[in-house]
């Protein structure tokens, strides 16, 4: 009895979190999308008269040391950071899930080798391979996407392999195969929808990790580099202005936090929904 109540109340809490997560994520996406087409000021326009002005109605997040509007710059930065993270998750997630699905579905020696390899690789923080790859390729947004997607493949492989291996023995898979469905059809149309409870949260976690990794690398100056704006690079600028313009760091850090929190809540809600 107690368990049933716990499950049900967990469901209600889950719905609240899901909605909150959706609202936050959608606002960040909307912010990003608007930033792609419109910013209140030109994010690169300098204004000598309004250097380091605190947040006001005309400059919501204030201005930086060149008098550039921080709100507009944050919009552009979010656009870069979010799109890098989206592409990373799309590429790394697709490659990893595919590898994992094939390994989990077919099993055998290839599965064993692949799993040993990804077990070993996931033991390392994704930052290390990402740093190595970016040092090979050099900075730039496309290179960051490539480096991060490669670094994220093993963890997606692991999650997806476990999910598909768990589904393989279920009666509906056998039934579909007996009806003559081809392997790709069984994998994509029958099994994939049933692994969403595992894969979707993995995607949301991957997205937050990608946002953080991109911001971290750009902060170090080896990720996305100017003229492309990135929240990470802007944070490194903002750090030098902490005493003069603390709102700069607050704005960049705040957007980063909301983006990660939103998808985090979304993932948590999806697990219970």
């Amino acid at each position, binding site marked *: 009895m107690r368990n049933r109540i716990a499950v049900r109340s967990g469901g209600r809490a889950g719905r609240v*979190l899901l909605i909150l997560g959706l609202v936050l994520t959608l606002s960040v996406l909307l912010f990003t999308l608007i930033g792609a087409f419109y910013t209140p000021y030109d994010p690169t326009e300098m204004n000598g008269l309004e250097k380091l002005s605190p947040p006001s109605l005309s400059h919501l997040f204030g201005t930086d040391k060149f008098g550039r509007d921080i709100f507009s710059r944050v919009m552009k930065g979010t656009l870069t950071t979010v799109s890098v993270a989206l592409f990373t998750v799309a590429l790394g997630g697709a490659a990893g899930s595919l590898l994992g699905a094939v390994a989990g579905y077919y099993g055998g020696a290839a599965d064993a080798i692949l799993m040993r390899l990804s077990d070993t690789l996931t033991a390392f*923080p994704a930052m290390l391979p990402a740093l190595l790859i970016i*040092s090979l390729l050099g900075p730039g947004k496309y290179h960051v996407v490539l480096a991060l997607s490669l670094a994220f493949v093993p963890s997606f492989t692991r999650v997806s392999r476990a999910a598909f291996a768990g589904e393989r023995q279920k009666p509906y898979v056998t039934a579909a195969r007996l009806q003559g469905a081809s392997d790709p059809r069984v994998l994509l149309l029958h099994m994939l929808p049933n692994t969403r409870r595992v894969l979707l949260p993995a995607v949301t976690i991957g997205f937050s990790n990608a946002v953080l990794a991109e911001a971290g690398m750009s902060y170090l100056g080896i990720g996305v580099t100017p003229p492309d704006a990135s929240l990470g690079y802007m944070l490194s600028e903002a750090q030098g202005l902490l005493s003069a313009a603390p709102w700069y760091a607050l704005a960049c850090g705040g957007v980063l936090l909301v983006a*990660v929190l939103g998808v985090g809540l979304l993932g948590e809600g999806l697990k219970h929904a």
Partner: protein
Amino acid sequence: MKTLLKKTASLLLTLLLTSFLVFLAFELIDGDPARTMLGDQATEQRVQALQAELGLDKPFFTRYIGWLGGFVTGDFGVSFSYRQPVWEILAPKLGPTAVTGALAFLLITVCGLPLGLFSAHWKHPAVLAVRTFFEQLIMAVPPFVLGIGLSWGFGVVLHAFTPGDFPALSEDPLGAVRYLFFAALALAVPRIAMTARMLRMSVSGELGRDYVRASMARGATRRQALTRHVLKNALPATVAFLAQTMAELVGSGVIVEQVFGVPGVGRLLVASIGNRDYPVVCTVIVMLAFFVLVSGALADAVNLMIDPGRRGGKSHA
């Protein structure tokens, strides 16, 4: 004994593979380190002389084997950019990084585990929603952003430390540890929430099991059931998670060291990647890999101590 041998062998093999991949990665980098070091104006003769001096004229495998042989005997080679033995450059950086990591790990276990146990008992749906919200909020804080926040709050406003002015560990140990505490705090905070969540999820998973009810039916209090039975089953996943945490601390430590200007291994790594100083990068990465793998093995050992019945079984982390 056999398991131990097998584990050690696979650990060594992984290390060998890692070192080879790292070495190979740098081989593929376009640049020719000798030419980069001397600049565009250098004559062909000088470049060749430097290549010979650094051993770059030899074929790839000879260099790898040579480097590996040196590594095993404690000779990590000579840094390209500093022209000093790698060990001499690396040694002074180990202290600050180790202290930061250890402090962070201490904070994580001391705060995370009790929090996880404590919050496992909450049931009211509103409380659950609020708890999960704050958990997600704290987990979402990027360590380096928190680091910037701490520099502002404790540095600029409260003057508890001067960001960027790191006192040398050997000259002012107390001041250095105090400085590193803030870096450790930045690293630890999101991980505290993650650890608490991890333990809570496994504890509440176990609390619903029959053996808990049976134990309580025999007259054990909730607390006794928790400490005698539940923890034994709930801890292994958390211990494995803590091992992963030690590894992640290495990754986010690289960035947080930059935030606080801590002269540690992470900053050395980033600088060496920029300088294409691959003797240093190889050494650092292989050492970090060693650390990651050893902490994983350590977690396995701790789990065997908690529950000897798991011996031979696969750990399900």
